């Protein structure tokens, strides 16, 4: 059973990695990358390395994702200026 799990996991990892690079949509690549980190954490569990898994989870779900998304936001911010129509509707949450 776990053989299937392993192959599924590794296959998914490769799929994500390929999908992330074989893509011109930057945001998609980044989301793929974030997901990739989380899958890696699962892979570490399977490889009997909980310390690594924990580190990968903490960093992958936390800092890396935030940094990447911030970078995407930055690169988007000047390439295509935001429409200004939303400002009046904007709530302080979003």
């Amino acid at each position, binding site marked *: 059973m776990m053989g299937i799990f392993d192959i599924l996991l590794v296959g998914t990892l490769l799929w994500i990695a390929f999908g992330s690079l074989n893509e011109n949509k930057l945001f998609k690549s980044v989301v793929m990358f974030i997901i990739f980190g989380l899958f890696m954490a699962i892979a570490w569990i399977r490889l009997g390395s909980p310390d690594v898994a924990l580190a990968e989870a903490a960093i992958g779900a936390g800092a890396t994702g935030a940094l990447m998304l911030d970078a995407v936001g930055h690169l988007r911010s000047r390439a295509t200026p935001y*429409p200004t129509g*939303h400002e009046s509707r904007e709530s302080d949450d979003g």
Partner: protein
Amino acid sequence: MPWQTVIDVITYALFAASGFFFLAGSVGLVRFPDVYTRLHALTKSDNLGLGLASTGLALQSGSWIVAAKLLLIWMIVIVAGATACYLVANSARNSGIEPWTGGDR
């Protein structure tokens, strides 16, 4: 029927239900027509799936403190999930993504 077997059977059932809800959530994510509806699928089924799985695991561990920890985890997931869900829906609304109202699918 020994007590452990009862627990095991309950656990199996919980696991099966959990798997079902996880699967349903993902199918919903894939099948539903727009962001908002997909969010529904995501927040409800998956949290339920996690809750059921945690309950099963708590039963198996047979320790109150572990059960409490699993409950804590579940609660955190719910709070975080609800907030994330709200934030995403909110941002989708703000960015002008109109909800699907049927018809074009």
